[in-house]
């Protein structure tokens, strides 16, 4: 797609499908213009017509347009409420990729059409994604709804930045049980067990590999090491079997630590990751990665590279597998490899340590929440927006555009795309053993300390013992500082 597609083009192109949808919509009872009924009609249609992104968008819009015209114009003037929605550029209509522009546009437009009669509309405010900046905007009361990283759920709800959504959810028939189990757990982990945001999309790291060079993906760490050794002996030079980022390393390994029996925090929330057997587990894991570096089984440059920076070696055809986020196939490989080469790539769950019975993988993702607002009209509009933006249709459309995983069980059961796409299937398989990192504020400093320790050990600046000891000291110091607040 080289041009931004106009909405009119959609509508015209999908006229036939739309006609069919309209027919089924007409068959539904012509209820009075109450939001609940409208929502149901939209949902039904989306479930019935499992088509491509483009067509679903037009279907939604067609149905919505039809329903809106059917309602009589309200006699009295409605109070105009603008929901100021702040979201990072890469998940807004301002992103550089057309498919994302289209997807997020459709969600906003459908909300504006549905709730326009009530005087509600959404104003998108793209920003650079900086969490600190987001907090500032919230405190200055400049936003009404936000898109934020799941890891901030507890801290933001605790800081009273978010609105409890339970009452509004009950009114529209939304239920937290419609989401994945780990999502439910996280949403209900707020201090008062209320739901303060809805989880929009999730992802997990995967093991991407070139199946021409690696016919059987390694399932465990020993297999991985062996495969790397074989490739080095067979091909040598600049060719490597595997690359792993050392910056941002914790994302791929936080779960594997748990799989080995490690614990991050005790029941009181105090960090225990550097004590006793937990410390031994880190040493084992470090030994594995340091071994990969020392024995020249991964490119040496990866020591100071993150997921992004290690990719050029993959594009150059010098590395045959890597650990990357679950949407890399679409985001990174497709635009940077020739078609024939791209087809050689596939994914599997990340290899796990031999001692662990299985792999546990970090589930990431993003949530949408409404900002706490004393004005009940704004609060209601914002909460409704949150629910709308994370409902089945919206998630279906946006997650496909972003190559993320939606968070509702229903979509996966009903959506052909997620049932058949191999990358999605692999991601779902990995997510079955998904874990969510601790949402305590100490997680940030603790994970930084662990990664710094790995960096220190990998560059030879400190021994593994000293590096971990420093990590422990730093973490405890930060923990004390946090407790004082």
């Amino acid at each position, binding site marked *: 797609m080289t041009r931004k597609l106009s909405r009119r083009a959609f509508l015209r192109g999908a006229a036939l499908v739309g006609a069919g949808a309209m027919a089924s919509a007409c068959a539904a009872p012509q209820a009075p213009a109450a939001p609940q009924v409208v929502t149901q009609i939209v949902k039904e249609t989306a479930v019935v017509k499992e088509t491509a992104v483009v067509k679903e968008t037009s279907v939604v819009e067609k149905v919505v347009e039809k329903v809106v015209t059917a309602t009589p114009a309200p006699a009295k003037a409605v109070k105009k409420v603008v929901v100021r929605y702040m979201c990072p550029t890469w998940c807004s209509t301002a992103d550089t990729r057309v498919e994302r522009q289209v997807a997020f546009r459709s969600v906003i437009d459908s909300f504006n059409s549905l709730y326009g009669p009530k005087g509600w509309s959404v104003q998108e405010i793209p920003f650079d994604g900086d969490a600190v900046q987001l907090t500032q905007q919230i405190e200055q009361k400049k936003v009404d709804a936000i898109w934020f990283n799941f890891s901030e759920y507890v801290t933001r709800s605790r800081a009273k930045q978010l609105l409890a959504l339970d009452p509004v959810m009950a009114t529209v028939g939304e239920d937290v049980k419609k989401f994945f189990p780990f999502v439910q757990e996280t949403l209900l982990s707020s201090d008062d067990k209320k739901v303060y945001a809805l989880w929009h999309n999730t992802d997990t790291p995967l093991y991407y590999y070139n199946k021409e060079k690696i016919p059987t993906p390694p399932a465990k760490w020993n297999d991985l090491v062996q495969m790397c050794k074989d490739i080095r002996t067979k091909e040598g030079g600049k060719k490597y079997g595997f690359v792993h980022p050392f910056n941002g390393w914790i994302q791929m390994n936080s779960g594997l630590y748990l799989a080995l029996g490690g614990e991050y925090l005790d029941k009181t929330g105090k960090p225990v990751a550097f004590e006793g057997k937990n410390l031994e587990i880190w040493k084992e894991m470090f030994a594995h990665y340091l071994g990969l570096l020392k024995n020249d089984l991964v490119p040496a440059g990866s020591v100071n590279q993150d997921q992004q920076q290690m990719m050029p070696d993959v594009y150059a055809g010098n590395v045959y597998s890597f650990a990357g986020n679950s949407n890399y196939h679409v985001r990174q490989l497709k635009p940077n490899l020739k078609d024939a080469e791209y087809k050689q790539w596939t994914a599997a769950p990340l290899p796990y340590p031999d001692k662990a019975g299985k792999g546990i993988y970090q589930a990431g993702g993003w949530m949408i929440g409404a900002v706490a607002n004393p004005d009940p009209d704004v609060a209601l509009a914002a909460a409704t927006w949150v629910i709308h933006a994370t409902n089945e249709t919206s998630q279906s459309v946006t997650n496909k555009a972003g190559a993320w995983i939606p968070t509702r069980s229903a979509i996966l059961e009903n959506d052909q795309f997620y049932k058949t796409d191999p990358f999605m299937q692999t991601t779902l398989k990995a997510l079955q053993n998904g874990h969510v990192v601790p949402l305590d504020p100490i997680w940030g400093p603790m994970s930084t300390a662990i990664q710094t320790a790995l960096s220190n050990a990998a560059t030879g600046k400190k021994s593994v013992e000293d590096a971990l000891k420093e990590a422990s000291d730093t973490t405890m*110091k930060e923990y004390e500082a946090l407790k004082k607040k």
Partner: protein
Amino acid sequence: MTAALSRSTRRLERFAGGPWPFILPGVLLYLALSIYPILYQFYLAMTDMQVTSLSSAQWVGLENFAFLFSDSRFLDAIQFTLLFVLITVPVQYTIAFALALLVDQKLRGRIVFRLTYILPLAISSLIIGLMWRLLMHESAAGFINALLEQLGIGTIPFFSNPNWARFAIFFVNIWSSVGSTMVFLLGGLQTIDVEQLEAATVDGANAWQRFFLIKLPLMRQISGLALIFMFVGTFGIFEKILALTFGGPANATFTIGFYMFATAFGARGAWGTTAGLLGRAAAMGVVMFGVILIFVLLYLWLVMFEREEA
């Protein structure tokens, strides 16, 4: 006629209260936005202010400083910053002087040469960092490593080896700043009395003697100015580190300024850096300013010392 002139001169002086209406607006604005912040930072360093609670900062005294001086990351940063300044400035000075001498010679096309040497001044620090990052990239896409391999020398781990990472930062900083120092020194060179040099040549002095015995001494004041500009300015390095090494590997290229910025605003991509701690960051800013102040005072003392001697 003379009397009238001196009367009007006195009137000129007394007009509109003298110099103040002209100086004051600019000075006041400058005081407010450039001097006051430095003083304000001293206060901030004693609070626990965070970005998320700008209005509810509590006084914590020297706690931030205590944290910093027991933080090995910070101590490493101080060490690296000093290393960086003390190595790159003399090297940059030497190269700049050499280039200035070069351009001063009556070579053909020296205008073009001069233009290219000051070209980096027109480029943003961030872009310079990004450019060199791409050139020095350790993957297959890196030009320099590809070239070195072709020549049979082997690759250089620019960003994964701490010492090479430091070298990369030094190199890029010198590359980008040598031009401005050169222009400065060139200005000084061009004011040296040509007759003095010619007299020396007649007396049998060769190029080296002319340089060391005439040019260098006459350039003392300008050199001093250039040096202090360089010393102090080098502390402000930030975007290049951001683009090139991001403080890595293993914090080998962390400067005080970089750590300060990352602590206050969170340099994006920094895996979970505790960001938003403005109080702590302000403390780092105070330390940074303190070190700069030491250099400045040293310079002033030397200048006053010189003046007394003369």
